């Protein structure tokens, strides 16, 4: 295979993979602390994307209840991104209080929580669609000053990656480092790991489990919102249902990397991104099936994922 082509595909894979990775970080963080799969992460992703769009002062289109609505002000992109992600984080916290806390208080099976999160996600995404319609939107370009693509190859054999994708990759690496540092090197991280181990004992030991669960959902929601905006920036916001599609694909990413494993989320994301990039041209139509085929195979062959440890069941 041509070296230039190979490099191009690898970089494409890493670019899309890093988006999956940031999404998966939030997804897997909740599993690592609470042992639940929070499918609303995809809906939070949508909320983040749409809120950022609104905060840039952009106008919503012709469908939906709030057709033609626009905020009377417009923030610069980075501030809008932060604002949108904070709203996403807040939404995550509300979902936790309303939908998950009652289940956790009853010691409900994680399967029941998954089902509940599916319901909430579908409701939230459809509310968004009800309000704003399902048209595609794109953000005003924040990277106007910079060149639109960076060349990793040579002038004669260019290997181009869009600047926005490089930025996204950098963001994902920064997020990974920050989150790993948080979990392993801070007191809060240690407390989070204690809660993950055994919530009842942790709270008996004086750890404020409520506050830590809150923190987990804030971080996770923030990351979800960031991803929504970044993906919107990279390929445009393709309707609220994009969040459901991401939520589904995200399942493949976190299982592949290992449920609850933070570096695993990034590994899983990058692997799936690369797998998608390397689908041969004649099968490009089946690319969307690749993450799910991988998910199915991983579940059968190695359910703990690439980085997870095999679980021993105590009888």
């Amino acid at each position, binding site marked *: 295979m041509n070296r230039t082509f190979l490099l191009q595909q690898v970089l494409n894979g890493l670019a899309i993979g890093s988006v999956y990775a940031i999404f998966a970080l939030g997804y897997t963080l909740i599993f690592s602390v609470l042992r639940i799969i929070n499918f609303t992460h995809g809906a939070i992703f949508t909320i983040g994307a749409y809120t950022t769009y609104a905060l840039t002062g952009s106008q919503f289109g012709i469908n939906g209840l709030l057709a033609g609505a626009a905020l009377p002000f417009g923030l610069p992109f980075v501030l809008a991104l932060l604002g949108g992600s904070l709203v996403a984080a807040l939404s995550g916290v509300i979902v936790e209080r309303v939908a998950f806390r009652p289940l956790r208080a009853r010691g409900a099976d994680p399967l029941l929580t998954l089902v509940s999160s*599916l319901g909430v996600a579908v409701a939230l995404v459809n509310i968004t669609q009800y309000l704003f319609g399902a048209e595609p939107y794109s953000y005003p370009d924040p990277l106007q000053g910079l060149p639109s693509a960076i060349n990793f190859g040579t002038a004669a054999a260019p290997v181009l990656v869009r600047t926005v994708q490089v930025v996204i990759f950098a963001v994902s690496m920064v997020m990974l480092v920050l989150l790993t540092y948080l979990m392993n090197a801070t007191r809060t991280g240690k407390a989070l790991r204690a809660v993950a181990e055994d919530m009842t004992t942790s709270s008996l030991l004086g750890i404020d489990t409520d506050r830590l669960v809150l923190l987990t959902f804030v971080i996770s929601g923030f990351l979800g919102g960031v991803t929504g905006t970044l993906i919107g920036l990279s390929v445009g916001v393709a309707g609220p249902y994009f969040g459901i599609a991401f939520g589904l694909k995200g399942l493949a990413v976190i299982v592949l990397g290992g449920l609850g494993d933070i570096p695993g989320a990034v590994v899983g994301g990058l692997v799936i991104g690369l797998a998608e990039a390397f689908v041969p041209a004649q099968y490009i*139509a089946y690319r969307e099936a690749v993450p799910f085929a991988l998910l199915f195979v991983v579940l059968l062959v190695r359910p703990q994922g690439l980085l997870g440890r095999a679980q021993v069941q105590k009888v």
Partner: protein
Amino acid sequence: MATFFATYDFLLVSMVLAAVLALTLYLPLMAGQLSVASPGFYALGGYIAAIMSTKIFPPGPGLYPVSLVLLEMVVAAVVSGVLGLAVGLPALRLRGIFLALATIAFVQILGVVALNLNVTGGAIGIFGIPQPFSSALQYMWLAVPLLVVSMLFVARLERTRTGRALVALREDELAAAAMGIDPTYHKVLAFTTSAVLAGAVGAVSAHFINTWNSRQGTFDTSVNLMAFVLVGGSRTFVGPVVGGLVLTALPEALRGIAGVAGLPEWLAAFLRDGRLIIFGVLIAIGTVFFPQGLITPGLLRRLVRRRVRPG
């Protein structure tokens, strides 16, 4: 009366078919398995019927013979059963969340494949599926027997050795195995039976809806089925049937209310298009407040006792 049926003919048949589909989620659930694979078999069944009736059997004048529809149902059921066995045998060694995820993956993969094969018509799908009846209401001749037979099957199942084995697995898989019940065999049995039923429903639905494409039998369908079972009742076969009937009728009823003059536009729009919002919220509320659903075995016992007691 006649106008009622004429107006709601499509809805009534949809309600009955939805009730049968709800039972396909109920079957694996009897063994404690949450499998959302039935939309995949439903889609497969529909494609089989669509392909057979548009590409294999020659078109003729007049109505499409019902006997051929029945044949398609049998073929769809058998093929779904075989695929169900093939997928179920490896997948049902998984427990809980892992199984649910595997079945989600299965439906997604089937969807992508259906979207891309020529024989399934790609993104456009197959349309102009021949009609065995001259009106929508006459589909009840297929739908109602299908519902009755499946209800009888599941009701009987609950009173037999196999049914008891499934319920034991749901209660405590470990103890059930220690009492001699083969978990994998029974889980695969429930899964495959569910696939067979879903395939048959798909075959009828393809004719009923007249077109079939990759938008039938998707993740959204899984969400619908979960709503039917969670709200209707997950511990007795009556629950999913009632859930399927009522929740399919609900959006229509709401649409009717939306037509009432004087409602603010936002409410009317919500009542018209908010089906998935309502289902999603019902699922969320259901898991917290009535995880066994509305129709519980306890409720049924009380209703039956009231009828049996004289006076």
